[in-house]
């Protein structure tokens, strides 16, 4: 009864009088476990989105796994070659190098971002003058395009900094660090921190504001100094927020792309090429299926990391 009538009229305006006519007042669609019948409208709300999601997100993932077992170059004929791509990846120094760089970068950046943003959050949460203004400034990077920001920093690193260094006689810095394969990663970490710190700061700020002030009053009465208050009270109380920042941050930094494109383009040589950049190169490089195998491995690694992180959280009993 009600089923057919509302299925046929998914568009809101037309359902108005018909639905009210044939659904008796008492039997309006179930909200809790009162009846077994679901109001079909709920299916109309959910299923189109699910279908699109399956088609645009899940399907490409499956197609990718499929082609990782072939020798498809991105065009033309292909045939199954089993796990050959996977075997080759483990023997490919360029791929290994990109994984090493990506993990090293993600770890370093996660640590720096969290230290910096916790410090900023503590500063913003303390009794400082012009708090609103200072807060506004610190969150600016959040609204800017990472790519454009990197272009700006690119000029600063490759022109401004060397000129300044020369002026002050700091010869080691007199050439662009972006062109130095041992130092280029530092620039990428710095810009990533610049760009990502506000997001983490907001989470820490939320954490700091969830700590009731009575806790600090009690600590003050006991004569605990600021550092002791920080390590013994604040830190344990916001541990959940720290965990979240570390997990989200690490996962995000593993997929780093735009900032590297804007700063070094993966160079010099391949010194700063991230896994994501390697995979994207399969789009133009004619090694489509090979990079798909790379992508599958990348997925398994990130999945493994997520599982480990979740386990650790559960074990330590951090309440989120």
């Amino acid at each position, binding site marked *: 009864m009600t089923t057919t009538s509302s299925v046929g009229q998914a568009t809101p305006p037309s359902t108005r009088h018909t639905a009210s006519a044939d659904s008796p007042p008492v039997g309006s669609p179930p909200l809790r476990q009162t009846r077994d019948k679901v109001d079909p409208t709920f299916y109309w709300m*959910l299923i189109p989105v699910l279908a699109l999601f399956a088609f645009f997100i899940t399907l490409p993932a499956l*197609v990718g796994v499929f082609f990782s077992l072939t020798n498809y170059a991105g065009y033309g004929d292909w045939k199954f070659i089993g796990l050959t791509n996977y075997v080759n990846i483990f023997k490919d120094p360029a791929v290994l190098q990109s994984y090493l760089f990506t993990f090293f970068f993600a770890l370093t950046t996660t640590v720096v971002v969290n230290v910096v943003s916790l410090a900023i959050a503590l500063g913003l949460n303390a009794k400082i003058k012009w708090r609103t203004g200072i807060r506004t400034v610190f969150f600016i990077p959040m609204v800017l395009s990472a*790519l454009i920001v990197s272009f700006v920093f690119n000029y600063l690193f490759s022109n401004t900094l060397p000129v300044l260094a020369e002026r002050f006689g700091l010869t080691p810095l007199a050439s662009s660090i972006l062109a130095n394969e041992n130092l280029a990663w530092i620039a990428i970490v710095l810009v990533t921190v610049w760009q990502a710190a506000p*997001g983490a700061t907001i*989470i820490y700020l939320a954490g700091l504001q969830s700590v009731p002030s009575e806790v600090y009053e009690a600590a003050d009465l006991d004569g605990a100094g600021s550092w002791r208050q920080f390590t013994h009270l604040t830190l344990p109380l916001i541990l959940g927020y720290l965990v979240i920042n570390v997990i*989200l941050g690490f996962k995000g930094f593993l997929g780093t792309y735009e900032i590297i494109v804007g700063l070094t383009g993966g160079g010099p040589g391949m010194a700063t090429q991230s896994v994501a950049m390697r995979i994207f190169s399969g789009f133009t490089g004619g090694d489509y299926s090979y990079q798909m195998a790379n992508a599958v491995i990348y*997925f398994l690694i990130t999945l493994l990391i997520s599982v480990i992180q979740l386990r650790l959280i559960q074990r330590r009993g951090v309440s989120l």
Partner: protein
Amino acid sequence: MTASTAQPHSASAANDRRQAPMRGPLVRRSSREGFKVNWWLTALMLVASLTILLPLYFTVAMALKSADQIGTGTGLAWPLPMNWNNFAEAYVATNFPKAFLSTAFVTVFSVLGALASSSLVAYAIVRNWHRKFFRGSFVYLLSAMFIPFPVIILPLIKQTALLGLDNPGGVIFLHVLGGISFNTLLYIAFVRSIPVELEESARMDGATTWQVFRKIIFPLLAPMNATVGIFAFLGSWNDFLLPQMMIADPALQTLPVVQMLFQGEFNTDYSLAFASYLMAMAPTLVVYILAQRWVLSGVMRGAVK
């Protein structure tokens, strides 16, 4: 997804504090030392804020320089006279109006799509939580958060190209679907806090589920709409990866991608490039400065969820 690093977490810690954040000094532990301002810390924070302000100043200064003024200097000096002409030239060189419109088109519909789809999905799931199908759908949508974007991008580009979606329209689809896991999660926590009784009286009067959603639920979601809208706006406006890879026609490219124009090997016209960067950054920057309290409280709401 591509908005990645700035995303807040989804845990439900401190839910009860939802109202408190960003209310100014009132909620802070101001009673601790009275209202004494910590001047040392203030000075430290001001100095630290230069790390943000200097690059921005530098961008403005560079955008106003002529090629001669840039020369071989640091680029930090303020140019006199200022060369406003750069903006006009950059406007033409990047075909700014077209890129702007394309970006705005993608952003507006991504935001609308994100609001509509994830609020509907969240509502349907919460109100049918006891049903396997809806709970399963929730887990399915959520599982996408574990799939890194690089994993699906290559097949995805092929697929969208086959369907004729290698244009801004396709980017909108992907922005909405890519953000749906996270946005639904935000909405679900909020919908749960809306008592069913509110709907029941409307249903007694014969309102359909659609009407209940439009007239009662969606308006009540207003704070979360703001949060989801802000994230969708920033993620969409600033996205580089998807437009760069998906949009086939260069004339329809979005603002961030257009800036690649200045990265050519033989390009040394930095004043033009910086004028263009500034014009691409200005819209979000201006909106943020004007509505900063509103934007920050919205983002904060996402953070405590």
